[in-house]
């Protein structure tokens, strides 16, 4: 029995002409796991919110939308709240209460359940999701991953039939995201809860789902089982959805797409290895080994005579007397023109490192050298005039009503002499001309990031510090970000990025390092770095590293 039957669903927001969704036809059965993907602004969130009466946006709706055989709008309020659950993107903003315990009870309290029933269900849910260890903690002490898991557990308290997830892992690091998606998968498999998820992290979701819906400008672009959709996207080469497919599938298709039939199309590393074994892949591909070997000598040699732009020497830092050391004898050297990426898990001290460099915090021991000069008792304005720091959350930069106003204000603060000219330059570089008159909160996350980056760059910093710039961005935005960064590098900027994003780092960074246990444990060129790693490396390298030494990304294989 179909749970949702959607026929020719179109939707336009109130007081807007254009349709956000057009002619969507969809049938979702009980126990389905459906992935909705597409570029930012393609209507994913709108579609998801239309499926739950309480959170439907205001606007004009046409076509039919049936839930459980009846019109969704006729669904009784209580039933709607209980049977259709939704988890949103931001882990923080959807939490209402102060402690984990209260948050879990919140939904059932709203529906007037007795304390005994609530406690009993909480006992079940806490065990199922493994949150015993922080049940009584205040919410703000949790990590992002724990918060999102709490949000999931909190809606599961009502035993819903349908779970709607709107980019639930966009704000999480890869490890937490994987854990979250595995939990969702478990819920789907063990409880047969229907799951509809919109995601950018497609590498991990594709193997879990049994249906994919790709949206483009509110219209269905592709629809069907995952492997079928991948084949279809490939058959129409150069489609923007190509970048949304799992790397291993793309690899397999671009090597010999015509031979691959639908069933044998690999989605995971394991399947790729089986496929490569069958194809005897080894002999067919030439790899850029020669170039790689040369570079290796470059980085390990201590002969680099050009002076460092920035050097950190033996930094030690802890947040309090009894707190653990976040940075332990951390040393780092940055040359002019570098694009240096620092990788590391959550809580490994990446953000702390950036703060120490900008002078926001003062390390207990060690020093930060700027062009060989010690920055003792750092005078913040003196240092920060040479560095630009882009925080994780771009909205923290916005205080004006329009993007243009924000840029103008910043230019004025900097008392730039060639104000207009610089602004024009930035607007062109980032391609933000069409959103100049919009409110900074009304544009997409990727656009916000561009604007924030433009704001930071107005002061023309010599060193650009980026804190997780790819967080929550869809694959196309990542391409755009990479393009902008390479333009900046051409203009002579130096970039230090801290990130979780292995694929992005592997492809674009000039050097990278692993921050672990408060110190840099490996610093190398990306190709050496990722080839030497076994767990902490790109999907392609994990799948084919032994067959094709030196290959870390798709573009390395395309040579043949």
């Amino acid at each position, binding site marked *: 029995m179909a749970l949702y039957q959607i026929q020719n669903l179109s939707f336009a927001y109130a007081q807007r002409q254009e349709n956000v969704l057009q002619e969507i036809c969809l049938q979702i059965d009980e126990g389905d796991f459906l992935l909705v993907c597409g570029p930012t602004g393609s209507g994913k969130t709108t579609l998801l919110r239309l499926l739950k009466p309480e959170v439907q946006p205001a606007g004009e709706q046409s076509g039919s939308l049936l839930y459980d055989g009846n019109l969704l709008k006729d669904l009784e309020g209580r039933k709607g709240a209980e049977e259709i659950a939704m988890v949103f993107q931001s882990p923080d903003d959807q939490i209402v209460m102060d402690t984990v315990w209260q948050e879990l009870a919140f939904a059932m309290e709203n529906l007037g359940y007795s304390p005994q029933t609530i406690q009993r269900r909480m006992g079940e849910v806490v065990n199922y999701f493994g949150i015993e260890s922080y049940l009584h903690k205040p919410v703000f002490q949790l990590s992002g991953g724990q918060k999102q898991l709490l949000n999931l557990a909190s809606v599961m308290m009502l035993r819903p039939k349908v779970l709607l997830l709107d980019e639930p892992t966009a704000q999480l690091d890869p490890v937490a995201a994987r854990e979250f998606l595995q939990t969702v998968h478990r819920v789907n498999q063990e409880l047969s809860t229907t799951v509809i998820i919109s995601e950018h992290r497609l590498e991990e979701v594709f193997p879990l789902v049994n249906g994919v819906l790709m949206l483009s400008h509110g219209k269905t672009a592709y629809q069907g089982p995952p492997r079928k959709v991948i084949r279809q996207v490939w058959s129409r080469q150069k489609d923007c959805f190509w970048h949304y497919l799992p790397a291993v599938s793309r690899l397999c298709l671009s090597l010999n797409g015509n031979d691959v039939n639908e069933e044998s199309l690999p989605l995971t590393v394991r399947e790729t290895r089986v496929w490569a074994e069958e194809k005897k892949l080894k002999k067919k591909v030439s790899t850029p080994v020669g170039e790689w070997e040369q570079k290796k000598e470059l980085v390990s040699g201590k002969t680099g005579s050009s002076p460092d732009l920035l050097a950190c020497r033996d930094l030690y830092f802890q947040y309090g007397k009894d707190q653990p050391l976040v940075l332990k004898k951390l040393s780092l050297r940055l040359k002019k023109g570098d694009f240096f990426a620092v990788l590391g898990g959550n809580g490994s001290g990446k953000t702390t490192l950036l703060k120490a460099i900008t002078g926001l915090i003062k390390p207990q021991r060690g020093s930060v050298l700027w062009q060989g000069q010690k920055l003792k008792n750092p005078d913040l304005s003196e240092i920060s005039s040479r560095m630009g720091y882009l925080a994780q959350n771009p909205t923290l930069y916005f205080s004006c009503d329009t993007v243009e106003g924000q840029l103008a204000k910043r230019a004025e603060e900097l008392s730039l002499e060639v104000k207009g000219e610089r602004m024009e330059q930035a607007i062109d570089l980032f391609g933000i001309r069409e959103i100049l008159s919009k409110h900074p909160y009304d544009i997409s996350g990727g656009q916000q990031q561009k604007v924030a980056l433009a704001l930071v760059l107005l002061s023309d*910093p010599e060193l650009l510090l980026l804190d997780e710039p790819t967080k929550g961005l869809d694959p196309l935005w990542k391409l755009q970000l990479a393009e902008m960064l390479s333009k900046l590098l051409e203009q002579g900027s130096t970039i230090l990025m801290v990130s979780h994003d292995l694929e992005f780092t592997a492809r674009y960074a000039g050097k990278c390092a692993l921050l672990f246990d408060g110190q840099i444990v490996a610093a190398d060129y990306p190709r050496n770095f990722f080839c030497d790693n076994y767990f902490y490396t790109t999907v392609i390298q994990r799948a084919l590293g032994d067959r094709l030494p030196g290959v870390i990304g798709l573009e390395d294989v395309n040579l043949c």
Partner: protein
Amino acid sequence: MSSGFSSLHPALTFTYFVVIIVLPMLFMHPVYLSSILLATVILNILLDKGEGLLKNIKFYLLMAGVIMVFNPLFNQQGSTTLFYFRDRPVTLEASLYGVLFALLMLSILLAFLAYTRVVTANRFLFLFASAAPKTAFNITVVLRFIPLMKRRLQEITSVQQAIGGKPSKSTSQKAREGMEILNILVTWSLEAALQTAISMRARGYGLGKRSSAVIYPFENRDFYWLVFLCLTGGASMLGAFLGHGQYQVYPSLGSFGPVISWHYLTVLLFLATPIYIEGKELLQWHFIRSKI
């Protein structure tokens, strides 16, 4: 935090703290006040090994010191002049009154410190949730907002500091910057609150009468302790109205009289209740550990 005295029903602990905060205001007697102060100090030490006490002790001592110094300087009542300070008499009575007043303030503050440890927001809400569930819920949300805003403010400030390129600032620029940070905070919080509202509605908020999941069962021992606390606490307060626990300071110091009376013993019994419960538990643990 739910062992010993804290594990009693919130109604009991709440009553105890109401009485112990009122008591010092009823007595003006050095022995009574010292006893109350001593009891609150011991209770604080038993509750959290004196952590909260150590953290705030500078403030407490400073405040007590100020009262003790300033009362005799500004209050010239009393008949026994000790010395003259800038042509104003400093009397023995006023000095003693200052000491008593400092004792009173300290006892109330320390009792309140212990109160925040024992009657947590959760327990307090439970007491009033059944009467006004919606108000209780609103209080929880508001209470959460204050530290939330503080954390957000910190984040914005550090990001704004690090954006780079800003020259050194004058005072007016700093003030304008402060306004801007506040502006960002408000916009951000409104945006976040919108999300929170959607997530609340998605989980059925406002559909019907709310219930409360918190239960603190009223056990037998709660009943016994309630009777005990009501008897001793009631008698202590009643005694104060009958004239016990008063010591004459003005115009001249009165005679001390017999301190040990039925009333003083009742007060001591009342004061000692949480100390007895906490201490018993502490000894138990100590005993078990030493056996192992």
